[in-house]
């Protein structure tokens, strides 16, 4: 007699988030990207539908990043000075289907770029490339509260994914995102309770839970990866068991964490690429829906891995 595999029936479902609006949807993107929608734990295909593959976004900055490692500079160095060129390179050369623009230059300790300047940049970027955008602030609450509303307005109707909202600073961003038709990244410090609380706070303001992506905060391989993994897994289990308040897709900032690791920076180019790829694949197993990455080689490896997973 053939062995019958035990099957879990889940009552919950991860919400589906759409990034980018095409012409028909009121925007100017060539395509929109859907993430989430899982009805089972990662890749347990017999237990429930997994309608969307994990997606990868290339990370680009508004100013030349100072602390990016040599290996990354070797790849991008010449385009660091112009974010538009950088974006073009990702889309044309590396076939990026999503871009994640980090407005680090707005930080008072960095270039202290004004809200106007950042909004103009976003406007130009939207004209330059036609892939959907993820836009992140500079992680200075006061400054982000000035910059992000302007950016939201500049990208009105393009259905971007904008972040980050945190438990202590979410109101301004939620209001702007609601007004201009975007989605929001809700960031919590590797804490399932805070992730859930933030989702409740955001939805209390009137933004639908379906428009939230959770950034659970991750650690790279060797730097707390397993901690992030278990938080994501537990959160997924709660969501699939029917808790709607945590049933949002995950966005993981893999590149910034992986390339911070000493092992990625100091042991030759290949090791850095592998560090980023391994971190990404582990998180995909934990349920990551959207990965923000840096090195095109690493992206290639992870893309191949995703293809393998879905080849059945």
């Amino acid at each position, binding site marked *: 007699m053939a062995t019958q595999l035990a099957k879990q029936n889940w009552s919950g479902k991860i919400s589906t988030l759409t990034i980018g609006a095409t012409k028909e949807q009121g925007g100017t993107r060539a395509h929109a990207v859907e993430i989430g929608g899982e009805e089972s734990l990662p890749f347990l295909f017999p237990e429930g539908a997994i309608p969307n593959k994990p997606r990868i976004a290339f990370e680009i900055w508004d100013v030349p990043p100072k602390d990016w490692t040599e290996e990354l500079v070797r790849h991008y160095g010449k385009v660091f000075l112009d974010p538009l060129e950088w974006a073009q390179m990702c889309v044309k050369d590396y076939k990026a289907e999503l871009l994640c623009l980090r407005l680090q230059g707005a930080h008072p300790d960095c270039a202290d770029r004004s809200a106007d300047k950042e909004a103009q940049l976003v406007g130009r970027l939207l004209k330059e490339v036609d892939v959907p955008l993820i836009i992140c602030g500079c992680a200075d609450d006061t400054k982000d509260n000035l910059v992000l509303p302007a950016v939201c307005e500049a990208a009105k109707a393009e259905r971007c994914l904008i972040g980050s909202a945190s438990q202590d600073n979410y*109101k301004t961003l939620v209001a702007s995102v609601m007004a201009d038709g975007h989605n929001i990244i809700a960031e919590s410090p590797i804490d399932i*309770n*805070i992730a859930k*609380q933030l989702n*409740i*706070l955001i939805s209390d303001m009137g933004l639908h839970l379906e428009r939230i992506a959770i950034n659970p905060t991750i650690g790279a391989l060797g730097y707390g990866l397993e901690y992030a993994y278990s938080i994501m897994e537990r959160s997924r289990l709660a969501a699939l068991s029917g808790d709607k*308040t945590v049933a949002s897709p995950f966005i993981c900032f893999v590149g910034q964490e992986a390339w911070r690791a000493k092992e990625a920076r100091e042991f030759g180019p290949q090791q850095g690429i592998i560090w980023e790829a391994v971190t990404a694949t582990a998180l995909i197993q934990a349920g990551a829906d959207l990965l923000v990455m840096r090195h095109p080689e690493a992206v290639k490896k992870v893309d191949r891995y995703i293809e393998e997973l879905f080849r059945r």
Partner: protein
Amino acid sequence: MEKFKVKFVPDNKTVEVPEDTTILSAALSCGLYINSACGGEGVCGRCKIILKEGKVTAPPEGTLTPQEKSRHIYLACLTTVHSDIEVEIPSESRLDFENLSPQELELRLKGLYAQSEEIEPKITLPGAKEEFTHSPLTEKLYLELSAPNLEDRVSDLERLYAQIRRLTGIKVIYTGLASIKQLGELLRDSDWKVTVTLGKKDDSCEVINIEPGDTSKRNFGLSFDIGTTTITGQLIDFHSRKILGTRATYNRQATFGSDVITRIIFSQEEQGLEKLHNTVTDTVNQMSHQLIEEHKIDLNDVTCILCTGNTTMIHLLLGVDPKYIRREPYVPTANFLPVIRAAEAGININPRGLLQCVPGVASYVGGDTTAGLLSSGIYRNKDLSILIDIGTNGEIALGNKDFLIAAAASAGPAFEGSGVTCGMRSSRGAIQKVKITPRSLEVTYDTIANAKPRGICGSGYIDLLASMLRAGIIDKNGKFASIQNKGIRNTDSGREFVLVPKEKADSTCDIVISEADIENLKRSKAAIYSATSVLVRHMNLEFGAIKKIFIAGGFGTYLDIESAVTIGLLPDLKREKFVFIGNSALAGARQMLLSHEAVKAAQEIARKVTYFELSVDPSYMEEYTAALFFPHTDLDKFPSLKL
């Protein structure tokens, strides 16, 4: 060393102290009590005084603002005396329970005790199943002995014992030498008619006192609850079994720190233990003195005192070093203390009178929990119940007649008014009820004794948080929802909501609640809720299985259940399951004073209770962070609050 005079106004008290003495200790030495929540560390900023005249030194750091400094405000604990000085103690820096007028005191005591009376098993009603037979710890027995003669040459003492045995059946008896010395003469002078006071010491019995004639109707006892914040005491007539009077006052040890940990730390300083011990015994003596004066009773007729309190408080009462309570593996010197002579602990009743302490369970679950379990009757009910004692050292007990388990939830003093900007203990002028109209954000409030508001007490904070949530002033995380709202303003230390402007208050500043206060209160309520929920889950139970929830504590009597559930302090259960029992520890102590059976029952309870250490439970931290939300991260746990 040179000595200087320190004059305190408006009290007009002067004291002479050596140079370099702090103003805080100068005030203490002339009987003035200044608020000092941190134990003189210069951290809490509660001990502000105004320098009128003279020279002092104070370190430049501290919690004072430049404006305060320009008004000659200093922290009493950090400021030392360097000339003759004059100092004003403003009203907000005082511990002034004793300043209440008799009527206000009466009001407050009624509020405190009305509820606990109701849950008393009626000791005076014979026949009922649960009651304890009347057998006070010290009993007076009137004896008429037959005089000896040549045929009956039994000695005086044996004659006395034989008669006691004949009347009571008690066999093991002993007597102190002092009583024996006076026995021969006393018996003959009183024509062989005497009253003996028998004291029950565990399983034996002692003749404590022998008096001429029949005084058996004049026998009294005291029961005390020594709380970290409040000390309450009762005078009880053993003959009529009635409570003659009840008094409450602050635990003046608060001057040395507001929670047990800072007090244990203080006890390790030079003369620290002695100071703590003396402060509490002085308070007990003062209160019992007031009680017996009031009822015109002779101190010698008070033959017994029974004390309950958390383990640290009992150690300090007896002058036993509490330091090991704080050190791993957290073992107290004693949980079960033998009956001792009250005088040995420095407590003034009949010089040969007895002191019994309610047995405790562990370092952080003390005799107050045992007494609470006794008086709530949880230990003999079939139904599952929970006892939640909301205090600085909150205790939670769960069980029924088959089992009992207890845990300590270090809730912190926020609900008792410490560590929050305008917090105060529940005394005159404390805001205890708050209503905020949604939209218009109109604030209405009630204060204790209807006095001008001076601050906010625990029940006031619970009501205030619930009202702010309902009116949308704060979000579920406890942050102000919008700065545009009326009454919300930005300060250097964050946002705050103005409840009462200073013009309408008996205070030098506006009565406010800040985001930091809300954070503090949120932590306190999360500690209580998560401890309760971990304890319930540890026993593989669900809240639904709990039949009754007894809420005890000094502010429990004013507690608005709906508000307490709204903020997630108490679980969302049918409201009729909640029973307020006020000071359950004192009620239990009284039962024990009146019946040896109750003492046995308490000992049985203390032995039976399993102590559950929350800090070693892996899920506690998780539960705690989940509870750091209003009402809770898991809204399914609060179905009645869902829209």
